[in-house]
């Protein structure tokens, strides 16, 4: 599978938290041929089920990758300009000069602008200008903007993807379309690997605003096991002072250990990686994983959950950077783990 081409496809569709429909269709088209059943749940999360070979009732494993992304939302139409707020965690430092698309009555190409200092409040003139003081310019006169854009319209990043050296890709929304791509790799790999368990790949909604899709999908699905796939902090020039929390691009998936992850499940994942000789690293996450795992773990009566991270530089900016190899490795690792999952695995799972 051409991972970079698939990533470019997945990152080309917008899908802000709460407005995931466009990317959901892209994912549905990719996963439908690899699975037997597609379902969209109440909040919009997409479930794709690949049945296992064991006798019914078979245990289920949920693979969660959030499909929503951060973006902006119009708070005011000020003549020909738009004032905005964030949907999810926006890094205001990188916003001036970014290309965006305003999803009004039509999709309008725009850019985020930092007004000249004399137009800003005195307190904001020198430092990082907060998002509330930036404007979006769609290059149209005020009457056209008034006809096409309303308060509440969403705005996505529009920077085009670019390949760097090797297999490095820079694209918007790698958080978390990279993980969705990893699940595609996993489902593809499973086409030729028999597995006892039912596999439900879930593209969850609204992770960026409180893991809401994970919470509700896990409740509805009630899986016996869950693996949340998200992005981990990539190491590099700008994060030299966080050596323990950042991981090399090209170093493979990061398997997390800590209170948010079931230690037995995490250990089993690592064992699968070692057996299959898949390059990987491990991470000690002292608290909140910052991923769907946080919600899934405490759904219903509790679900054994693990968390895999794909190393990513420049997280939460339109220029997120990753290694395509890491995406492929993550998908393969999950497939290997699932292929080796015995029907009675949960009964063997211990907390020690």
């Amino acid at each position, binding site marked *: 599978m051409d991972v970079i081409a698939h990533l470019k496809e997945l990152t080309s569709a917008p899908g802000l938290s709460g407005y995931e429909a466009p990317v959901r269709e892209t994912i549905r088209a990719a996963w439908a041929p690899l699975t037997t059943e597609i379902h969209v749940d109440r909040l919009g999360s997409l479930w794709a089920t690949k049945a296992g070979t064991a006798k019914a009732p078979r245990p289920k494993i949920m693979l969660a990758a959030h499909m929503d992304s951060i973006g902006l939302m119009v708070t005011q139409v000020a003549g020909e300009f738009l004032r905005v707020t964030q949907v999810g965690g926006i890094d205001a*430092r990188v916003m001036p000069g970014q*290309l965006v698309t305003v999803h009004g009555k039509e999709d309008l*190409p725009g850019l985020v602008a930092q*007004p000249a200092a004399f137009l800003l409040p005195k307190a904001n003139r020198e*430092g990082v*200008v907060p998002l509330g003081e930036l404007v979006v310019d769609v290059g149209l006169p005020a009457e056209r903007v008034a006809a096409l854009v309303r308060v509440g319209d969403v705005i996505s990043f529009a920077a085009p993807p670019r390949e760097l*050296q090797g297999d490095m890709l820079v694209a918007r929304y790698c958080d978390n379309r990279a993980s969705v791509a990893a699940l595609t790799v996993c489902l593809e790999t499973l086409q030729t690997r028999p597995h006892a368990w039912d596999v439900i790949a879930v593209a969850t909604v609204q992770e960026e605003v409180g893991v809401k899709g994970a919470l509700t999908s896990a409740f509805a699905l009630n899986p016996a096991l869950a693996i949340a796939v998200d992005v981990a902090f990539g190491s590099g020039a700008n994060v030299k002072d966080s050596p323990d929390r950042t991981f090399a691009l090209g170093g493979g998936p990061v398997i997390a250990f800590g209170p948010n992850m079931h230690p037995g499940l995490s250990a089993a994942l690592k064992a699968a990686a070692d057996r299959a000789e898949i390059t990987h690293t491990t991470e000690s996450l002292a608290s909140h994983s910052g991923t769907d795992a946080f919600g899934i773990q405490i759904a219903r009566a509790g679900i054994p959950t693990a968390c895999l991270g794909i190393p990513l530089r420049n997280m939460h900016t339109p220029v997120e950077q990753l290694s395509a190899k890491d995406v492929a490795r993550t998908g393969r690792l999950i497939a290997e783990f699932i292929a080796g999952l015995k029907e009675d695995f949960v009964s063997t799972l211990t907390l020690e």
Partner: protein
Amino acid sequence: MAQKPVSQKPAPKPKARPRPARPVAKPAAKAAARPSRRPAPVEPAAPPIVKPPKATANELDLLKELSNAASVSGDEGAVRKIILDAIRPHVDEVNVDVMGNVLAIKRGPGRGERVLVAAHMDEVGFMVSGHDADGTLRIEIVGGVDDRVLLGKHVLVGAKRVPGVIGVAPVHLLNADRRSAVTKANQLRVDLGVESADAAKKLAKAGDRGVFATEFDVVGPSLRGKALDDRLGCATLVELLRGGPYGFDLHAAFTVQEEVGLRGAKVAGYAVDPVCAFVLDCTPAHDLPHSDEERENAQYNTRLGYGPAIYVADASTLHDARLVAYLQATAAGAGIPYQIQQPGGGGTDAGSIHRNRAGVPTVSLSVPGRYLHTPVSLVRAEDWRNSVKLMKLALEGWTTKILKR
């Protein structure tokens, strides 16, 4: 009882008869009443404003090629090549001087007076200053760029346009202080996607220039791209060379290093030694709303949609009043909207040219542009087309009489 001296009560004033209202003298009438020292300005009878012809596909393609090309101050080769190819069939003589200025002559049938029209080829950007062990590039900024627009941007490095990214530490890993701190240019690194200095050196040498990777685009009535300052001026000058011939020798100077001190123009102005000069540039339009909705933005410098901006005075030049008046009259006579750049700030190649040798009467005409010196600038196509139309008419109608005092 002591009697107060009976003071003559003043006789009650007769009630003022309502007098007919005195006509309020209009200020103009008042002025007319006194002999004034200066003649009243002559208002040309203004023909209606007409829309300029749209750019042809050819003209837009040239602008797109110019905007996308990488030519940072001191390294203008890419734009120079495009311009040389574009103008050679239309000029009598063309030279590249020792700094890289393109000096072209289009002779006219007249008496050979030299009129200089200049536009600068260079843009702001960065230069690779060194290689970090982790494979990233250290950079220095060339020209005036606000540090805050550099973060999280796609860039292209060197003549081979190697793609890179100016990365950033994610906010999740930073404390509140660092999140609100401005990252200075010397802390930035360009990531090419390699992991060692050796690998990076194969892709980009120290001294290579870099630009934002923005691609030119037409968006409704607007044009969007990088380096519209001053590829718009260059495109306009190319069109002027494709027109004519004019009643004088048109000396076109596509200058270098404007962004780092108007330096190419000084040398070009010396070489040409013209009787007067027109400088084509792009000037900031700070016409965004004030943060405080109650306050009016009165310092916009220029505004989009109000036509090309004629300079009267910027930070480096008092533009020649005769040429200013000539441009205004030409515009008014042809129904071309124009605005006056708000005096005081900014600078163009006119700053160098007008002080050259014994002095050169100079005026600048600029297309108003938003977000200049950032990854994406924005102009109205009509303002550009009106600047082309105005310059064409100005050159077609130019005679030495305009400079008569």
